[in-house]
């Protein structure tokens, strides 16, 4: 996937999150640096369900392996940019 593809993907994910964030009355701007747990107040189940919705759009995503890898790296949170990079990598591999 080229840079244009990445930017389109980023825009799509941000748009989805923007729609949802309005329901949570989250008013700060959403950026690639926004964190799901710390900033958005996600719980793990939120991420799992969001993953289910994204997979309907982008096809199979090895979501659990992605989260497990971050956990093994000692990461305490995940950013929107992490998620988009993960989807980009996967969609690029599947293309």
């Amino acid at each position, binding site marked *: 996937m080229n840079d244009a593809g990445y930017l389109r993907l980023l825009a799509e994910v941000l748009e989805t999150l923007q729609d949802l964030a309005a329901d949570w009355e989250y008013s700060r701007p959403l950026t690639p640096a926004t964190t799901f747990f710390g900033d958005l107040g*996600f719980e*793990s189940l939120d991420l799992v369900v969001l993953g*289910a*919705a994204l997979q309907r759009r982008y096809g199979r995503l090895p979501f659990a392996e992605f*989260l497990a890898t971050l*956990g093994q790296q000692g990461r305490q949170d995940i950013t929107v940019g992490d998620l988009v990079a993960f989807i980009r990598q996967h969609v690029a591999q599947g293309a």
Partner: protein
Amino acid sequence: MPPQTVLIGLDGATFTILTPLMEQGVMPFLRQFQQQGVRAVVRSVTPPLTPPAWASVMTGKLPGQHGVFDFFQREGSESHHLRFVTAEDVGTETLWTLASRHGRRVVVLNFPLTFPPPPVNGCLVPGGWVPWRQLRLGCYPPGLFDRLRALPGFNARELVLDMALEARALEGCAPEEYLAWIDLHIRREQRWGEVLQALVRTEAPDLVAVLFDGLDKIQHLCWRFLDPALASTLATPWEQAVAARCRDYFRQLDALLATCSALADPAATVFLVSDHGFGPARTVWYLNAWLEQHGYLAWAPTADQPITTDPQLGFRAIARHLSYLDWHRTVAYAPTPTGHGLYLVRRRPDGGVALTEDEYQRQRQALAAALRAARHPATGQPLVTAVATREEVFAGPYQDRAPDLVLSLAPGTLISILRGPAAVVERAEVVGTHHPEGVFLAAGPGLRAGVQGPSFSLVDVAPLVLHSLDLPVPEDMAGRVPPGLYRAEFLRHRPVRRGPASALRPAPSTAGARLFDAEAEATMLARLRALGYIE
């Protein structure tokens, strides 16, 4: 146009509780409804558990034919990883998609296995485990969530899952929090009633289906406050207050049922059905500990680590139960406490063959015999009423997703998959657990009035609903319109029509991604435990 058919799901409803409440005047509408219609015991599926049972209501098929066996699903037939079941796991058409395909408009509210939402001719709001933050993604069609949000009193947090509100139960629901917990479910049912009324007004649906699931949750936690047989044990003012609040839940549910019924055309058919029944339980069978004692299971050296049930979900190391097993020395294991299933290890995580086909058959047969012989150490009573192979119980296109063996537990028994202090332990207090016999009540054109019909299978509900909509029943449905419910002359005038087989969906188990990570699994297990599903 008011709806032609109303299907009201009452998750876990049992006549053991409903009949006394009707007689005591707590549920006057239900009593009147029963007098005007037909009542029967409905036999649930194996296992009598919310996801497979509601999937059978929706599809008219048994679990091996629709593909849902538990809250969780192995990623593949040889996988040691679990993921959470979703709508994508229902491998065949549902009442909603069948009715939509025939041009009927539907409104479907709060049923499990409806996320991600399937396209329907009408509106669908998912239930089950969808968190409130994601509700927008679960509503169909797009834009429905904004319509709902404009309703007076709409509150997504109360309508669906909000872990913050449910934290009480996660932490074990302290005595002082029981009343608030029950109140939450009273409000939740009211919110669904409000959504239902709004959508019936605007959508003119032919079929309305709504699920009220507070019964299941309250009966798990509060069985001893509800069961008339245990009423004499409620001695303290607090116990009596909890019992009174439980009755209040049912009183207000009864008013909601009256409202739902009133939304329908006077000539409509109204069905009330539960996915399974309920009963008391006190015996905890630590099944994996029992397997260890009998040489079928070995724990990994890390198994002494405590399991974290902290609902604060970051990326802290929360070990999964399956990671506690030593796969090189384990022959069989129970991956979840809910599905009553056991898997044999045919391949190790490294891909090596653990059991040849002959060894698999021999080991499975020996394990089944040992399970049938399992006894409560204090009473000497069997812990199971039946042990079946997946070929016996789950025959169908999705059989290879099913456990190798499935248990029918003796009444009063719960399963735990944790390392218990012993293989069998008695709880200090009675809790509620699922029972195979649920409830069915129906009233409408052609249905007999004021009678108890013969019991029938849960898979017969879908044909009943389709028939009431004057739609053909697909020939591959396991269910049929059961005898004894309709007057004979009505069925002569309006016979049951059979139609072409419903469409199968491709199995997603190997194509779909794993949706359930270790932390989410731990959360779900904690929640199920808090609700009384598991120990």
